[in-house]
């Protein structure tokens, strides 16, 4: 009887599934929509849905992890590949693809990713998946204004919506600290910004990367073409370069007179050049940049782009240029025009004292007798929320803001203390930047492991950077390992440390 009771519902379920599958075949969504909107007819074969499963971390407790899942769009390329934004592919553990807005998911694999460009290429070894899919043509030129359409799969239906190109601008990219070319679109479309295709005349003119209020940003076709071509030509991909200098607009005539510039106001004044990025005699403080790559720089810091009109000079770091390339500059220095070159440094989070990101790796930490040390990074600060510049401890967030003032490659923070008898008396010490341990300078967690070997008189001495809080603490070195083990057990932590490999490859 029991068996029967279980079998009956199962058979009913099978029956229902059969009906549902029939219904699905009956209202094939892209067919219906294509009839309504002939301008996108056929493009349903060029858009796929991606499902990303990834790990997320709580930097307040870096030994914990959670799983997150998102769906986003991808555009079919040649060679059985899909182009999408790199966003949300960080720390991914599973990629699945779906065509037609519904039906079977197939497993995908990450073939190429560049976080600064915010681009990724996905493949799949499931040959059947590619049947019926057609590459979308990427426009050679990106329009700078006028109408466009967004297409995406939504609830099993290919959605095509009109939007309007506002302008092409050069702004900080979503995953990077450098400025890149972006298409700005006026739109009221809800939930846009997940790598949806932006098309005009059936050609791809951009893929969306974010939305803020009524403006959506998209990576423009010219940028997509450039990056995809470089991916093929450069082995390995050299990455985006950038101008690692700070400039001020040159539209104060009195300042230009002081700098002995003749003629109309033009050029921008260099306020700061990042250390160790340029050879001696290259760009200097108080240089007035007059042209880059032959393009005259105006007093607002813009140039006339032959393809897109007036754009910020920052675009010249990525306009057909890559990390390591030499860029020609003409500057006014001490009243004289000087020709010089600037070598584009590679956009690399790890090059920053306080890195903006640490993708595809577990958060680093090290526990020493209950003292928890972590690298000072923006992801750590973001554990106070998106408004971390206001909410995180002032001294730490200020350090991240004023990157140029650092004389160290990276910083280690005593982030918290897991109370134990070993660290009695220090429980409230936290958010302190470590200077040295046992007399050895500490720049990264690995340094702590080395310094731990140099205890003196059975004591570990930890000195923090000079500030308004505790400057030093001492631990019993003979008891530290035992205390660490006790803390791990008591607080349910698996490993005493997680360290990043010396050089983590960013691309597979």
């Amino acid at each position: 009887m029991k068996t029967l009771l279980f079998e009956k519902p199962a058979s009913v379920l099978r029956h229902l599934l059969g009906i549902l599958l029939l219904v699905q075949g009956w209202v094939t969504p892209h067919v219906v929509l294509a009839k309504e909107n002939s301008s996108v007819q056929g493009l349903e074969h060029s858009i796929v849905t991606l499902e990303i499963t990834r790990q997320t971390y709580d930097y307040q407790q870096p030994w914990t992890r959670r799983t997150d899942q998102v769906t986003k769009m991808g555009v079919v390329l040649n060679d059985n590949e899909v182009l999408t934004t790199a966003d949300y592919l960080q720390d991914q553990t599973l990629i699945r693809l779906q065509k037609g807005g519904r039906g079977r998911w197939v497993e995908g694999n990450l073939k190429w990713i560049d976080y600064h460009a915010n681009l990724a290429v996905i493949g799949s070894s499931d040959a059947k998946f590619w049947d019926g899919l057609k590459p979308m043509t990427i426009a050679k030129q990106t329009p700078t204004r006028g109408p466009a359409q967004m297409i995406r799969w939504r609830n099993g239906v290919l959605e095509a919506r009109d939007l309007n190109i506002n302008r092409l601008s050069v702004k900080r990219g979503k995953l990077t600290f450098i400025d890149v070319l972006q298409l700005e679109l006026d739109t009221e479309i809800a939930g846009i910004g997940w790598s949806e295709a932006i098309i005009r005349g059936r050609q791809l003119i951009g893929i969306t990367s974010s939305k803020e209020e009524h403006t959506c940003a998209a990576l423009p076709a010219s940028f997509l073409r450039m990056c995809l071509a470089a991916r093929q030509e450069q082995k390995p991909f050299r990455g985006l370069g950038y101008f690692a200098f700070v400039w001020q607009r040159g539209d104060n005539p009195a300042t230009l007179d002081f700098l002995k510039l003749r003629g109309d106001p033009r050029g921008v004044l260099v306020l700061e050049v990042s250390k160790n990025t340029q050879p001696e005699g290259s760009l200097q403080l108080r240089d007035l940049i007059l042209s880059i790559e032959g393009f005259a720089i105006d007093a607002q810091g813009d140039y006339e782009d032959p393809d897109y009109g007036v754009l910020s000079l920052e675009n010249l770091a990525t306009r057909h240029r890559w990390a390591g390339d030499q860029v020609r500059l003409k500057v006014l220095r001490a009243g004289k025009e000087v020709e010089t070159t600037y070598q584009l440094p590679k956009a690399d989070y790890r090059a920053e004292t306080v890195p903006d990101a640490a993708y595809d790796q577990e958060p680093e930490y090290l526990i020493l007798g209950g003292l928890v040390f972590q690298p000072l990074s923006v992801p750590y600060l973001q554990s106070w929320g998106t408004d971390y510049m206001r909410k995180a401890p002032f001294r730490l967030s200020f350090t991240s803001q004023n990157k140029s003032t650092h004389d160290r490659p990276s910083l280690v923070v005593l982030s918290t203390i897991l109370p134990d008898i070993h660290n009695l008396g220090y429980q409230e010490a936290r958010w302190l930047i470590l200077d040295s341990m046992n007399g050895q300078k500490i720049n990264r967690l690995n340094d702590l492991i080395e310094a731990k070997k140099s205890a003196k008189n059975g004591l570990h001495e930890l000195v923090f950077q000079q500030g308004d809080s505790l400057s030093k603490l001492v631990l019993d070195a003979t008891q530290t390992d035992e205390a660490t083990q006790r803390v791990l057990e008591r607080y349910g932590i698996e490993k005493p440390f997680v360290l990043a490999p010396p050089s983590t490859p960013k691309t597979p």
Partner: protein
Amino acid sequence: MSTSDIIFSNVLKLVVSCILGWMLIFSAGAASPEKSVIQITTSSQQPSWDAPWRFDAVRRSSGTGFLISGRRIVTNAHVVSWAKQILVRRYQDPRPYAARVKFIAHDCDLAILEVEDERFFQGMEALDLGDLPPVRSPVVTYGYPAGGEQISYTRGVVSRIELQSYSHIGNRAYLAAQTDAAINPGNSGGPVIQDDKVVGVAFQGIPGLENTGFFIPTTLVKHLLKDVEDGRYDGFPQVGVRLVALQNPAYRRALKLPDDDLGARIDHIFDFPKTKELLRRDDVLLKAGGYNVASDGTILYAGNRVFVGVVFNDFQKGETVPLSIWREGKTITVDLPLDIYQGDRSEGNQYDVLPRYFVFGGLVFTPLNRDFMRTLAGSWTDTANNELFYELFYRKHESPLTVRKEPVVLAAILAHGVNANLETRGRTLVDKINGIKIEQLEDVVRAFGEVGNAAQHVIEFYPDRNLECLDRAAADAANPSILKTYGISKDRRL
């Protein structure tokens, strides 16, 4: 671990607020102490720190005071700060008498007023000052709080006694007593009475906390009275060390100190000449002014376990405090002369001194201080203000060698043709003008006055290194018209 600075420079966590109320003034009834309780009405006017030549609207507020020996009226400093007129009224007497500030101690929020008119004192007896009341003992507050016109009495007990931030100055902490007797706006400056003696002066509360009021113990009132015996108020001396708990056995072993819960560690020494000469980092403070210092930095003071900093509040400027110090495995005695520290004045609220400024070419320069920071829109810690915040509160701790005597900020730009092309919008720290490093406001005046050959005045800012120039001839010529346009009678207050 408990970490406390004796100079209490970090004021971010301040949550207390002054009780200064608005009320109408009448009085009636009679009893003995209340005859000596005085209602104070103050008309005050504060300057505007971002337009320092201007004043805000006149503000009328009310507080309380009480008579002590020598025909002196004790009240809170915040009751009479920025006063243009002070009127006092006796118990049940509708007539207002003019009063004036004899001494004002902004650090401990106390003031002494005097009244010239002899009639004011007729039949009024001075109240005696008592000692620090025990915790749990009953007290009665007298005052003229909001919500009525008559004198008000509220009864409660002393809930606790410990070091508290004094919100009037903003960056000092002294002994304070907490009571559950209602202390409301208008009570400020009123006496807290026990056994017919004044045991405290009501002064502040914590917004949102019920049955929590604070009064200033008479130890501080007595300190003030002794301080002003020479006709001048000096203030409370400080030691200039950061003292931290020393409870970890390993650290105690490192210092060869017995594990006996005695002694707190000197973690940092501030720029106090005598302190730097006589004390060292990692010295352990065992005893201060005769009090044993526990490993958490507290002492047993009149039955209360409080931070050792209260010991130094019992001393006057120039006096010497005996310290027992553990250094290199031995106990030594140090007689430390105490002085008044002015180095952190700009970090606290300032009163009764008009802000300094200099206007040139429409550029308004003023010293960076806490009052200026308060004029900034939004939160102090708004990211746009981070650099000012760091300069004011953090630089001296982290880079003491780079500290300027008086950092100067370009507070605002008064729009005019000569400055219309400046990219800088103000609220920026000034590094150099015409090549002269700006250490204080006077340097700005001197730098613009320099007669040079250059056709421009060159202004450099920090930390972003922005550079701005003014056409020298045009700026020099524009000053009178800018001052006239913006209604500024004088281009400077130095």
